[in-house]
């Protein structure tokens, strides 16, 4: 009994130093310069988000637990007022392998404009229209680490549905998406078990990844006929089909040049297609004898389904300019445009950030939709949704 007590005391006190909380709380204000297409939409949206992080490690760093809940309150959009478990996972490190069990986020790929290869996590679309924010995905992930690369096995036992704005939210389709009544190809619906496999390796200047996914596609199709949602309002339903996707991501790092390629073959609804992102990033370091860097980014976005693609980026060119000041406040600015090569549609974006003092950070973002023709069925609904936003975050 005394031994047990000693052990318990050791367990509690020994690794106490590794038991830590951190995180951030952020205030956001978003402003649209034009009225929305629907009278139920607003022009100004205030919002608060909080994301604490708890981390605990023991066994000399070979085991750890992490927990990252996330919550947002939005002034008008009740679907954007949402909570999620971004991470709740256990990690065990072995000599030549690593095991992770729980809810996590995984990123695959190298491109900046879109992430074709990255299919493990669902997009938390209400957070950001650029698809960079993700929902936590329950998984068992076992990584085998060899001299010839790392092989990751994934079992994904539960499916997360994409979030969409409510009737009162902006950047939505004219009829809102009825997220309560999603349609699935698999009769197991959200309980369909998905599998994925990835090999990744670094060979000199080359970083390479090959992946395969078999399960429910994270990208929903949208029903073409309107139905009633739970409140009796006309709406469209998301449809989740099963898919197999094989992906390749490749980066060659040659001095100041980064050459990038992401390519996928996706088999879905009895069809097979290829999509790719290819491009480069070139950085001018220490411009004009200052500490600043200027990076040029150019990527070509392709989808062989052409206008039938379920993406607005089927034959588009992305150009970006990244300015990094390298000062003590880590100031940076990214200007980008995605231009359709077949019509006049242009999607402009500006993202900037800088630290204020030791614990605060200011983020600005603006997106502009220009020249979107009615034939562009993906961007046309957003033609009056150009916006600018400011976020002030406190880190603890």
């Amino acid at each position, binding site marked *: 009994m005394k031994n047990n007590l000693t052990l318990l005391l050791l367990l509690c006190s020994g690794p106490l130093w590794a038991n830590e909380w*951190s995180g*951030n709380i952020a205030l956001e204000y978003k402003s649209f310069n034009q009225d929305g297409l629907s009278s139920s939409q607003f022009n100004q949206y205030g919002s608060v988000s909080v994301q604490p992080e708890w*981390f605990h*490690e023991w066994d000399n760093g070979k085991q*750890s637990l992490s927990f990252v809940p996330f919550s947002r309150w939005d002034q008008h959009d009740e679907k954007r007022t949402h909570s999620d478990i971004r991470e709740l996972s256990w*990690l065990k*490190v072995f*000599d*030549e392998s*690593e095991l992770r069990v729980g809810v996590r*986020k*995984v*990123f695959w790929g*190298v491109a900046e404009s879109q992430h074709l290869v990255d299919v493990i996590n669902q997009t938390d679309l209400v957070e950001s229209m650029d698809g*960079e924010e993700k929902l936590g995905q329950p998984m068992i992930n076992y*990584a085998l*680490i060899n001299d010839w690369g*790392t092989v990751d096995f994934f079992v994904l036992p539960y499916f997360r549905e994409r979030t969409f704005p409510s009737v009162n939210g902006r950047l939505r389709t004219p009829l809102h998406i009825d997220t309560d009544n999603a349609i699935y190809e698999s009769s197991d619906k959200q309980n369909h078990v998905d599998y994925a496999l990835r090999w*990744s390796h*670094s060979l*000199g*200047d080359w*970083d390479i990844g090959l992946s395969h996914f078999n399960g429910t596609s994270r990208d929903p199709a949208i029903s073409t006929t309107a139905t009633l949602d739970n409140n009796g309002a006309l709406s469209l339903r998301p449809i989740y089909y099963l898919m197999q996707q094989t992906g390749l991501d490749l*980066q060659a*790092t040659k*001095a*100041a*040049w*980064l050459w990038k390629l992401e390519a996928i073959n996706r088999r879905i609804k009895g069809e097979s297609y290829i999509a790719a992102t290819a491009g480069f990033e070139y*950085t001018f*370091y*220490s411009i004009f004898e200052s*500490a600043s*860097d200027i990076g040029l980014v150019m990527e070509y976005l392709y989808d062989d389904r052409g206008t039938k693609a379920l993406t607005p980026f089927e034959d588009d060119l992305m150009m970006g300019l990244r300015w990094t000041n*390298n*000062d*003590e*406040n*880590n100031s940076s600015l990214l200007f980008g445009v995605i231009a359709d090569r077949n019509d006049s549609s242009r999607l402009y974006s500006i993202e900037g950030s800088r*630290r204020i*003092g*030791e*614990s605060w*950070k200011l983020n600005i973002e603006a997106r502009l939709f220009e020249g979107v023709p009615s034939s562009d069925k993906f961007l046309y609904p957003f033609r009056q949704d150009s916006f600018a936003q400011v976020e002030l*975050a406190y*880190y*603890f």
Partner: protein
Amino acid sequence: MKGIILLFSLVAFSGAVFAETAEEKGLAIAVEADKRDQSWGDQATTSKMILRNSQGAESTREIRGKALEVKGDGDKSLIIFDTPRDIKGTAFLSFTHTLKADEQWLYLPALKRVKRISSSNKSGPFMGSEFSYEDISSQEVAKYKYKFIKDDKYNGRDVFVMERYPQYKKSGYTKQVAWIDKEMYQPLKIEFYDRKKSLLKTLTEHDYKKYLNKYWRPDRLEMVNHQTGKSTTLLWKSYKFKNGYKSRDFDRNSLKRAR
């Protein structure tokens, strides 16, 4: 007879010294410094950087580092940032090489993304400080050409004064002048000359301590930029050797779980 032999050998010895050029003597000092600092194996450090702008306003960064000695090439290192809080958990993995381009990866915890980054920005500031990437990367003999200048005294200690010229690509320096302590074979001061050959920065290294009875490490580094008036203090809070690190602790998998 014995005296003659002694005389002969003295002549032979001094002859050898005089035959040695300033370049050869400089190289010999660098080789000796490298030899004395070999076989440390691995080390773990915690440190704090204090950045000062020209008005004297300060900001701090807390950093943990791990390094693995690689025989015959540059070392492997993993650096984890604890503060400022907004970049907490950001980690930097680097395989340095003597003349070939270094391999570098950055882990961005918010995106869970490992990015292979270019190592061409050798002269770029590390974390907004007055230390550049080339200042903090591992020092290998083959990275420079050397020239011995003179024997001197610095802060009451016997030193070699020597110049070294970077041989790797993309260096921001044309020349460095180093004051090497004759007992420790470690630098007490280094002056950095920019591409236009004017004095850019001065580094002074303070409070050396001996670890494992062999390896000298400073407790404090002061880097002053003469052209901008900015300065950075780097305080080494702890050094720990013999951690048993393997190259497995310095791969992209360990980068992803670095905390």
